[in-house]
């Protein structure tokens, strides 16, 4: 320690330190820290590696749980799925948006990622299947039919689906008035099980290069199979959701406060939970940034007194 005198008992934080100094090599400190952190990262890597659970594909979903795939596809076709009634940014659905009091932020940007679930997830992929005259006729009949008849076919199909028998991995429905929906759904399931639907949903407008997975991901999200897999990995919103990671890994633990609000009332049952929590976290984040300027909060550390533990050597010296 280079002695300049005893450390002051009440140093002024706005002027240079008038007390004694100690030798301190910042570069050496950084090099040592870099070595220690690198070593720790290597040790943790060797001990625990990192998780890499393969993604769910529409093909794996349709093969593992064809009934769930068909039930989901039906809701997309008749416009009753969660996505079909989501509202902006995917579609226009009256009163579907989340609000913070009178504020409807969800509607502000409008529909910027338009998705027509029937057209995008069912009708257009089916229209791409070549050399299937029965399917062509079914599609033409479906598209010609009035909405009430389309709904009746879809309703009958949805009602019968739970009673279907599995024959070679394909649900066989009892006889019923499904109209063209029966052959359409059979063809869609075949397309999905072959892997063709994964490509069809991704190859938007027949472009070669693709990096946007919005459509296949939103379609997957509508099914129970995807959610069951997440539940098995403790990833549901009610299980502290996306701050977790597949397997027994720490995940994004720094999101704990964001995820915490989803576990308690009034957010737990609120239809506006996402918007309310997002706004709440934005306000809390702003307060966190502005702590030095918030009366009461900026003087709190002095009252808490934990600084005496941090600077215990200093206080021991000045207080004797």
């Amino acid at each position, binding site marked *: 320690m280079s002695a300049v005198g005893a*450390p002051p008992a009440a140093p002024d934080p706005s002027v240079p330190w008038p007390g004694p100094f100690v030798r301190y090599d910042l570069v050496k400190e950084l090099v040592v820290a870099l070595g220690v952190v690198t070593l720790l990262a290597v040790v943790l890597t060797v001990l625990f590696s990192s998780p890499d*659970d393969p993604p769910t594909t529409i093909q794996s979903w349709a093969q593992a749980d064809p009934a769930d795939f068909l039930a989901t596809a039906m809701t997309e076709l008749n416009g009753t799925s969660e996505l079909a009634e989501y509202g902006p*940014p995917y579609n226009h659905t009256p009163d579907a948006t989340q609000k913070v009091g009178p504020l409807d932020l969800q509607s502000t940007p409008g529909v910027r990622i338009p998705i027509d679930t029937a057209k995008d997830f069912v009708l257009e992929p089916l229209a791409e299947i070549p050399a299937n005259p029965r399917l062509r006729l079914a599609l033409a009949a479906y598209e010609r039919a009035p909405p009430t008849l389309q709904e009746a076919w879809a309703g009958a199909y949805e009602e019968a689906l739970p009673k279907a028998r599995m024959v070679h991995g394909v649900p066989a429905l009892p006889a019923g008035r499904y109209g063209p929906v029966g052959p359409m759904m059979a063809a869609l399931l075949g397309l999905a099980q072959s892997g063709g639907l994964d490509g069809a949903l991704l190859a938007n407008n027949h472009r070669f290069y693709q990096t946007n997975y919005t459509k296949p991901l939103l379609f997957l999200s509508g099914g129970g199979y995807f959610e069951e897999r997440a539940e098995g990995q403790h990833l549901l919103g009610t299980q502290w959701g996306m701050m977790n990671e597949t397997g027994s890994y720490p995940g994004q633990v720094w999101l704990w406060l964001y995820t915490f609000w989803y576990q308690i009332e009034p957010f737990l049952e609120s239809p506006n939970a996402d918007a309310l929590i997002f706004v709440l976290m934005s306000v809390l984040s702003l307060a966190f940034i502005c702590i*030095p300027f918030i009366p009461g909060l900026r003087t709190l550390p002095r009252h808490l007194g934990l600084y005496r533990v941090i600077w215990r050597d200093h206080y021991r010296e000045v207080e004797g």
Partner: protein
Amino acid sequence: MWTTWLRERAVSSLPPEKLLPDRQPSYVSSWIYVFGVATIAALIVIVVSGMILGLKGPEWWHVSSVGHFFNSIHLWSVELFFFAMVVHLWGKFFMGAWRGGRGRTWVTGAIAFLVAIGAAFTGYLSQQNFDSQWIASEGKDGLNSVGVGAFFNVADFGQMYTFHVVLLPLAVVALVVWHVLLVRRHGVVPPYPAKAAKPAPGAASEGTPP
């Protein structure tokens, strides 16, 4: 010339003895000071391991054991980075580290923490595995509910990957550099007055905004 002005301004604000001092006030003798530099060290490991992963592209680590090794290094250095950063932040809070004109130092550190959360979030979205699928599926609702999802689409891998490997790392590194320069310029905040000690004459009041 403006370049001369800039150089002179930089040197007068941060002369070499302030930028890289060989001594520190005697109160800088606590383990809490280690976590700031540990955060920077972890950030260096993150950037280097991320660059190695970036050299071979986002699919490499799924098909190569070497790639998986570097992905694990990347993951664990991120965990160490946040651990060190959170301890550093709590430490600085309990020290009232914004006193004496150090408000901007706290602000840049706090913003760096929040931007780093975004960088990590886009990293999880860029993994191309079930985790990223599920995080995108869950995360979209929060972002859509306030209109952000229309512009920041978590299901768009191309957009998330660009944010993760270019935009947000640049922002984090820039904020950390700014933060460190402010620390060097204003020095490490001194302790609160000892028991029964009177503040130095003319000292800044604690209630005064920094």
